[in-house]
């Protein structure tokens, strides 16, 4: 079966590139699963989403992706993320800490959009790292 060529890039560096069987990303319309022979798509990713790249045989590649785009054309998948972090690179203790702090400030002030976004981001990072999040 044909494989997808996947590239995950952020403005500062190329985060990962390689071949894959399936890519699952979260756009503002909902989750999208991309397999080889997928129609060309350009989608906007949600803030604080988790990207999953399935590779036959090898463990899945999971990354926290904060905003950006997914573009699919001719079996090439590009994830353009403003900020992205591989699950294996996440500092779990720091992310958990950040989430607790952000949630505390959200509870204190419901209007605090910045803290809410921070909590979302921290949750995505924890989920990318494979941690259970309530």
């Amino acid at each position: 079966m044909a494989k997808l060529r996947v590239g995950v890039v952020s403005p500062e560096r190329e985060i990962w590139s390689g071949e894959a069987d399936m890519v699952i990303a979260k756009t503002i319309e909902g989750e999208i699963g991309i397999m080889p022979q997928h129609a060309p798509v350009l989608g906007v990713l949600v803030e604080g989403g988790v990207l999953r790249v399935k590779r036959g045989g090898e463990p899945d590649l999971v990354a926290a992706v904060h905003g950006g785009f997914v573009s699919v054309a001719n079996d090439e998948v590009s994830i353009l993320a403003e900020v992205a972090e591989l699950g294996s690179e996440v500092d779990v203790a720091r992310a958990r800490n950040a989430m607790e702090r952000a949630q505390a400030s959200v509870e204190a002030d419901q209007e605090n959009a910045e803290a809410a976004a921070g909590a979302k981001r921290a949750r995505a990072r924890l989920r990318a790292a494979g941690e259970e999040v309530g």
Partner: protein
Amino acid sequence: MGAQLRLLRRRIKSVRSTAKITRAQELIASSRIVKAQQRMQAAVPYEREITRAVTGVVSNTASVDHPLTVARENPTRAGVLIVTSDRGFCGGFNANVLREAEALAGLLRSRGVEPVPYVVGRKGITWHSFRGREMGGQWGGFSDNPSYANAKEIADVLISAFSAETDGIDEIHIVSTEFVSMLTQEVTVKRVLPLTVEETTEKPETPLPYFEFEPTAGDVLDSLLPRYVESRVFSTLLQSAASEHAARRRAMKSATDNANELIRVFTQQMNQARQAEITQEISEIVGGANALADAAAGKE
């Protein structure tokens, strides 16, 4: 020791310490060029992908008139983003950029468009504020190592000024230095908004795919275009940073060379002066001895 000798010694000492400083600056700059070049390389994949995506959307959807892609009918004000460095010691780097910016401003005025400078880098900021020019925005402190957050901040200001209903700007130009190679850096002027997606000279082998959009073409374009502008600003900042280091390395290298040449000339002069002094002393002693001998001979 003669006064001239002492003077020359003092000058040599001072030139030598200057040479040490310029040499150190040169080495620092050379090591930073490599890092800056690597960052430029690292930013290429994102820029390439985002350019492709924008090209895809714009060529797919000729019907979408996005405010960022449409040229205004009667432009009256144009933003000019001028990218300079924070520190001097880099030869003509800033002067070249500012001269080009002035030329562009003249061109814009002749078209009846008022230029509004947006300045990056402390050198450019002081240049403008010293002349009492109003600036639309100013940023400093990161010219030698810009981060994406800096580019985002600048792009945000530019885009919001561009989309403002009143007192906004109708065009955005960037004047900056492009890093061609270690030895050549060129000052370039580019128009960023209204958007002209860069045409590649080579024809793609396959026609661009007909994209589906999630959620809609307009929404995708809405969030894609600002990112594209940010990415353009970011790559401009990176190029300018690499050019700054290259210009500084070159300026410091010639300063070091000049200092060494000066030291050589002064050393020669010093040796000459010392030799002249010794010769004079010898002839004085010989003259004195002769005089004594003559006096003694006269007594007898």
